[in-house]
């Protein structure tokens, strides 16, 4: 016998009958067996009231999947497979609409990258031009990448090549004389790839003129606007007190091609995206950038919300940080550059030229002593410029009234001097017990082919390498300076007094009772004296 009695809906129904147990040798009546199988199958085919699936189909799908994929140790992961099959079922049944054929962004980006590889039609003309000009304008990004890779610094080779192609596009579009891969600054949403560029001379003048025209138009509009306002104000009754705050005189930015604006910078978010030119930097922006510390978002038009309020948007902040990093970390082997001999060596000299008699020092020396490296970008003064300018000079242009006021309030602006160009980096101050630079050789195992690597500790992410006559600077980082102390934002200035102190509105303590009585007595005395005088006068008459 077996178990039983079985109900018709249970599997095994009919198997408890004598002769139908699976252990008997006789072949039982096929009809009953078939019935049992049908019952079992019917049970398996029963649709679940909750999910609409049935076990039979589920097993079938699962076994198909397992036999197709044949994973190892299937019995251990059978539950997960079962779950996955159920999830797949679920999704298909819910969607009565067909999915739109989504093109993932991968393919769009691939299209853009492919566009980089296309050679333009008019390129042969460009090549001839370049030969006439002399040095190639396109930087050898791959060579630089190779050297930095020896130190473990740099982007992946693919990205470097895309950047090289993007530079080619830049050179073809803009009138560029020299061009260099400055580095990459990371942002929250997107990153920036930065090119340091010198435009051909004619082009810069045109742009300056355009900028000046824009500025004068703006000034004229402002003056007209102010004239109208003044007329209206004279008609009004007493006005609320005006602020006596006089902003410090605006320090003019340095001319294009000198100081902080020596180079023009182009940025793009990714190779393939269009290059955008960054505006020249003003001293106010540099001074403010020194006081704030903000992440870049990756969008050039993003506002910078900070205190002190940054005069500009992210494009200006980016430009200011680029200027600071260049001034602080662009170095070359000592002696590679020299001051031009024909010009007098002024203290504020900004020009340098290559030294044809430069003898490269061996790598071991470059690593040992920091005196073998020199800055070739002028440092930025506290004022925000490389060359100091007296801000009070502007008062000659203002009206006479203003001049008088300014002379009274004039502070003594001390002339600031910075370190001259081509200072050795051994003069750079460290912070607490951390030197400003760390020098290493790229490898100790193979000294014949090692190169000297410099890392800046003041601007983490700034690197330089030197090998024989080749050297290069680069920056990979978030764009912030290192400070051993935490960043403390500037405090707001104390609130201005609303009204200037005048006797009419100054508070005084109320007189006490004694004072009042004394005053009254004094008044009465004066009255009495006056009456006596009048009486006297009356008597005279």
């Amino acid at each position: 016998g077996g178990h039983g009695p079985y109900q018709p809906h249970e599997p095994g129904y009919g198997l408890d009958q004598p002769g139908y147990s699976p252990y008997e040798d006789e072949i039982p009546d096929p009809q009953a067996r078939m019935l049992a199988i049908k019952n079992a199958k019917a049970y398996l085919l029963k649709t679940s009231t909750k999910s609409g699936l049935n076990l039979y189909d589920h097993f079938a799908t699962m076994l198909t999947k397992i036999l197709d994929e044949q994973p190892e140790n299937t019995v251990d992961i059978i539950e997960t497979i079962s779950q996955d099959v159920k999830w797949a079922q679920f999704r298909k049944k819910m969607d009565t609409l067909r999915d739109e054929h989504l093109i993932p962004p991968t393919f769009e980006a691939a299209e853009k990258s492919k566009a980089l590889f296309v050679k333009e039609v008019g390129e042969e003309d460009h090549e001839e031009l370049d030969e006439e000009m002399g040095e190639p304008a396109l930087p050898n990004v791959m060579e630089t990448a190779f050297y930095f890779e020896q130190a473990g610094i740099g982007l992946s080779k693919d990205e470097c090549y895309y950047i090289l192609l993007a530079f080619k596009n830049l050179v073809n579009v803009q009138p560029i004389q020299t061009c260099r891969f400055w580095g990459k600054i990371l942002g929250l949403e997107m990153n920036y790839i930065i090119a340091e560029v010198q435009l051909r001379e004619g082009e810069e003048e045109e742009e300056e003129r355009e900028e000046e025209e824009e500025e004068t138009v703006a000034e004229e509009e402002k003056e007209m606007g102010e004239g109208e306002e003044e007329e209206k104000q004279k008609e009004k009754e007493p006005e609320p007190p005006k602020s006596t705050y006089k902003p410090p005189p605006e320090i003019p930015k340095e001319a294009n091609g000198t100081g902080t604006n020596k180079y023009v910078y182009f940025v793009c978010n990714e190779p393939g995206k269009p290059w955008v030119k960054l505006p020249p930097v003003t001293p106010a922006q540099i001074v403010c950038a020194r006081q704030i510390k903000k992440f870049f978002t990756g969008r050039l038009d993003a506002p910078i919300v900070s205190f002190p309020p940054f005069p500009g948007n992210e494009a200006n902040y980016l430009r200011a940080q680029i200027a600071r990093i260049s001034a602080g970390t662009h170095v070359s082997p000592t002696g590679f550059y020299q001051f031009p001999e024909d010009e007098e060596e002024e203290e504020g000299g900004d020009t340098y030229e290559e030294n044809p008699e430069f003898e490269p020092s061996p790598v071991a020396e470059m690593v040992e002593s920091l005196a073998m490296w020199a800055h070739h970008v002028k440092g930025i003064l506290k004022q925000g410029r490389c060359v100091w300018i007296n801000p009070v000079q502007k008062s000659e242009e203002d009206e006479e009234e203003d001049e008088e006021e300014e002379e009274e309030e004039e502070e003594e602006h001390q002339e600031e001097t910075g370190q001259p160009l081509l200072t050795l980096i051994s003069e750079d101050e460290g912070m607490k017990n951390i030197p400003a630079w760390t020098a290493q050789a790229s490898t100790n195992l193979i000294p014949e082919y090692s190169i000297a690597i410099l890392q800046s500790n003041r601007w983490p992410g700034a690197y330089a390498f030197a090998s024989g006559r080749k050297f290069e600077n680069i920056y990979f980082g978030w764009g912030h300076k290192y400070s051993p102390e935490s960043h403390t934002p500037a405090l707001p200035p104390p609130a201005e007094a609303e009204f200037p102190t005048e006797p009419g509105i100054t508070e005084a303590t109320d007189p006490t009772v004694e004072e009042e009585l004394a005053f009254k007595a004094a008044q009465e005395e004066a009255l009495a004296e006056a009456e006596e005088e009048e009486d006297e006068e009356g008597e005279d008459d």
Partner: protein
Amino acid sequence: MEALSLPTALSLVAGGGAGLSPELRAALATSLPLVQRDYRFERVWFWGCIQGVRGAYYIAQGLGPDRAAPRSRLYSLNCLDWSLLTPATEEMLALAEEVKGRFQGDPSFEYSLAEINAEAAARLVQSGKEPVIKEEARLIATIEEIDRAVGIVPRGAFVKTPLGSVHENRHFEGLSLVEAKKLSSYFHFTEPANLKNKTLLEKADLDPSTDFLNSLEHDIPQGSWSIQLEKGGSVVVLRSLLWLGLTFYHVPMTKQFGYVYFGTGEKNLDLPFML
């Protein structure tokens, strides 16, 4: 990141500009398998590199059968000779938080605690030890802190068995592109602290075998992760803004993921001002 997939992984995190020189890569390829053999680890991960002023520390982690168990950490100055680090203690963590500034690059360098925190120095003196903290201890504490704070894995990559041990999910096929852009698809690979605080609605969607860790959604301050799609969406890169230098990568719809740290080993305490 997995020692075996080091070359591809390094090229995926190279967007930040930090990486390893060919010499170090070659050295790692030979020394990490030896470490695995000597210490009988099941897996060896290359954790990253902490830059000191005079030298750098390269860190590797070895994992046993339970991936969530405390990991063994090793450090090396040249990627060839590895030394095991002792596990981090709470005391070490507390002391190391006081020490600020760059690592020196010399494991036996001693920070004088008397200058930094007189109380802690006094306590140490009382218990009979010198009021110093060695750079090695600081290194151990820093690595532990970084792992706790920003060591992340994608959701579903690890499963918890009913016995409590954690294994890689062999059925993990990667996050989809949509999921990969969300912070909630990534978990801290540490002891979950506030798993029970979720609302019932959220808990209903969770799967206890895969959702046993904290997700990144509730990290303080908000916005302390930067998610970017690189290479046109074929790689998702998360960069931590709290520990600058921690980069996590994942190729959607594949099993590839990992994180690595290339940095100075200092917490970015200015983060709230910078966002």
